[in-house]
């Protein structure tokens, strides 16, 4: 894909929208008692004004941005985002060890590691990680809801 100014223009428009929503939200803050001249709305309104101005400037004078140069890049980024999303969803239900093993396997595969190596690394990282973090450091990591019943 070639360089285009479309991304910057779209982002400028998004900023303009965010500034609008933010300003409306700030406007609707009601304070029962106010002892100071500015109060909780003035500063946010100032920020919204600056953001709206910069958003307009970005739409008017965008930079050229190249997003992906090939399909493989887009696939890896998309897949990586999904893998992390699933990891977050399974972290508590399946527990640290199983979810980490799965995430590590998938992530290592995306970086071109052969399946067998990725699987071994996933299991090793999950077990070493759990005992290192939960036992040695005493941090709070989920053991897994499925083992509870």
């Amino acid at each position, binding site marked *: 894909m070639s360089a285009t100014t479309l991304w910057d223009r779209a982002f400028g428009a998004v900023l303009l929208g965010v500034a609008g929503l933010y300003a409306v939200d700030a406007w609707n803050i009601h304070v029962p008692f106010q002892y100071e*001249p500015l109060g909780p709305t003035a500063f946010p309104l100032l920020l919204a004004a600056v953001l709206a101005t910069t*958003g307009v400037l970005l739409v008017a004078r965008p930079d050229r941005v190249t997003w992906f140069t090939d399909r493989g890049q887009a696939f890896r980024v998309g897949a990586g*985002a999904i893998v992390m999303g699933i990891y977050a969803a399974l972290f508590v239900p399946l527990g640290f060890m199983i979810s980490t093993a799965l995430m590590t396997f998938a992530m290592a595969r995306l970086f071109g*590691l052969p399946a067998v190596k990725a699987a071994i690394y996933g299991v090793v990282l999950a077990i070493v990680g759990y005992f290192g973090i939960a036992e040695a450091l005493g941090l709070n990591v989920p053991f897994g809801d499925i083992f509870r019943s």
Partner: protein
Amino acid sequence: MDILAGLAEGFAVALTPLNLGLLIVGCFFGTLVGALPGIGPINGVAILLPLAYSLGLPAESALILLAGVYYGAEYGGRISSILLNVPGDASAVMTTLDGHPMAKNGEAGRALALSALASFVGGTAALVMMTVFAPFLGRVAVGFGPGDYVALMVFAFSCLATLVGSRPLKTIIGVVIGLMLATIGIDSATGVMRFTMGIPNLFDGMEFLIVVIGLFAISEALLLLESWTPVASTIRAQRDNIGERVREIVGYRWTMARSAVIGFFVGVLPGTGASIASAVAYGVEKRMAQGDDAMFGKGDPRGLVAPETANNAAAAGAMVPMLTLGIPGSGTTAILLGALLLFNVTPGPLMFEQRPEVAWGLIASMYMGNIALLVLNLPMVGIFARLLSIDTAYLVPLVVMLTFVGVFSLYGATFDLVLMLILGFSGYVLRKLGFSLAPVILGLVLGALLESNLRRALSISAGDWSILFETPAAIVFWLLAILVATSPLVMRVRRRKAT
């Protein structure tokens, strides 16, 4: 002689076994994250911060660990710059210019040893300057009122906008996004909710750690996924005669002296950090060598020594405004500032008096850290070089796992993981669009401070905005801010006249 007394107290804190151990761990980890391309000091500190917090370390110990990672990374960044021509972090870009050609000429060992020594000299010289200047600056800043602070922060933002990132407009947008994130949650002055969208997890505000880890570490993982190419690299670093290098580095003492002073003061300027310092020092050294500068860019040791001295000096310099004013000098020191706030230490002019064990303990630990880093880096450079060939396939899952553990261990909430990912994906989009993320973090850290000082100033003046321009200090900051903001424009006009 309260400086010496303070330093003595600091060494007493830093020399306890726990702090000494954390210092060495921090320095080692810092060199490692600095050396590995893609994981810079910001990510290193961001990943370790929640772990340090959840472990319940005392404030000074946590800060010693995190600061060790921070300036350790400045040592590590040069390794991949020299061996691979890939800067390990942003401030090591200038090191590639002469460092890598030296390695290609078969002088990798010499380049690594010289740059380690230069890093040590730069870091230590800046520490001496910091020891002298920081308490002094703190005493000046005690007299600052809320109006002065507002002006100072505007100055910091204008430095940032002019000097950092691809375009001032994008830096300003980044700062505003950070400031807006800071307004989410309960307003401390009136107790009303702002911008929480009814989500209970946001009532206390955006958790700083989650924002930092999401924006930096998660977006970095996505960028590594994007830029991955199936090529294996082979790197070797040979040992070198260290005694000979020490003799050689003495010959560059004036280069190092100039670069250390430049680095320190560029680092002290709010909003500018090690990457600008190393670029300025390199430029100055090249100009000083006029007539004899044919080797610059082709492996001149001066072109290696200057940026390496300067970026380590700037790393220490950037700590000065963070500790004495509560205004960070760079993205990573903004995270360190956030870390201090998490531990209920408010950096600022009074910190040297109220929490001397933190302020002086940190400074003392940095003296020892520089020595530890030199010892780590001279004989062990081969180990770090070999670690460079670790496959990203092993590295990224480990980083992702650590970010999840770090964020989850805070409150045990899945919501925080989702928030971290949303912020991470946004951070990735911002970086793809050419935004730098340091301004966002600076805005987030300074948001509450800026708003409360603005409101306090206007309360004092009963709504009269002229209070922001009344004191001498405030006027100086406003003038400096205007000067910095208009300097690129002036330069462009001058250049046009010259041609």
